[in-house]
């Protein structure tokens, strides 16, 4: 049962990532693309955690934590850049 649940969940996250890619292509503006990238990194974290559950190992945890931190900093920096034209004030 668990294997089935993992397969279904991975499939759903895959579809979610493809939909994100579609929105990334559609745009229409820069903030939309930043929002999509933000969603994409959270979804890829979901993917990595699912893989960790599949392997029953906690090694994948570090990767997910790193993506979470770098993704947040990246989104914040991009927003700052759009707001002020500068990352460091």
């Amino acid at each position, binding site marked *: *049962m*668990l294997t*089935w*649940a*993992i397969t*279904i*969940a*991975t499939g*759903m*996250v895959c*579809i*979610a*990532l493809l*939909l*994100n890619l*579609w*929105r990334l292509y559609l745009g229409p*503006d*820069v*903030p*939309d693309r*930043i*929002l*999509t990238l*933000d*969603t994409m990194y*959270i*979804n890829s*974290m*979901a993917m990595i*955690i*699912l893989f*960790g*559950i599949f392997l*029953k*190992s*906690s090694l994948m*945890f570090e990767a*997910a*934590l790193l993506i*979470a*931190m770098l993704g*947040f900093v990246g*989104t*914040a920096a991009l*927003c*700052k850049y*759009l*707001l002020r034209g500068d990352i460091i004030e």
Partner: protein
Amino acid sequence: MNFYVELFVSILLVTGAGFVLIGSVGLIRLPDFYTRLHAPTKATTLGMGCLLIASMVLISFTKGAPSVHELLITLFLFITAPVTAHMLAKTALHYELGFTEKTKGKELAEKARERVSPADDA
């Protein structure tokens, strides 16, 4: 492994992935940037929460020792998600992105951009 643990983890996994998927569907379906902002930043927090709790329970049971470090990611996401959402909304307001036709209070956007109170005539 215990059947009920497996059942619980499976339900959490499918609900979590469902929320992630719904967030992305909202990203495609909703009409303008401000409404799109609601879908992923929220649905994803709960989705990730479900997935991380599932991982926590499963790894605790397979290893026989409690595994709590997934809590850190959950906490981190719950702290950063509103900050990201706020910054994106601010960026969109200053970028003068349009609202959909039927949005109420569109005229407030100008006031919000100027950071004055709504009663001021700027």
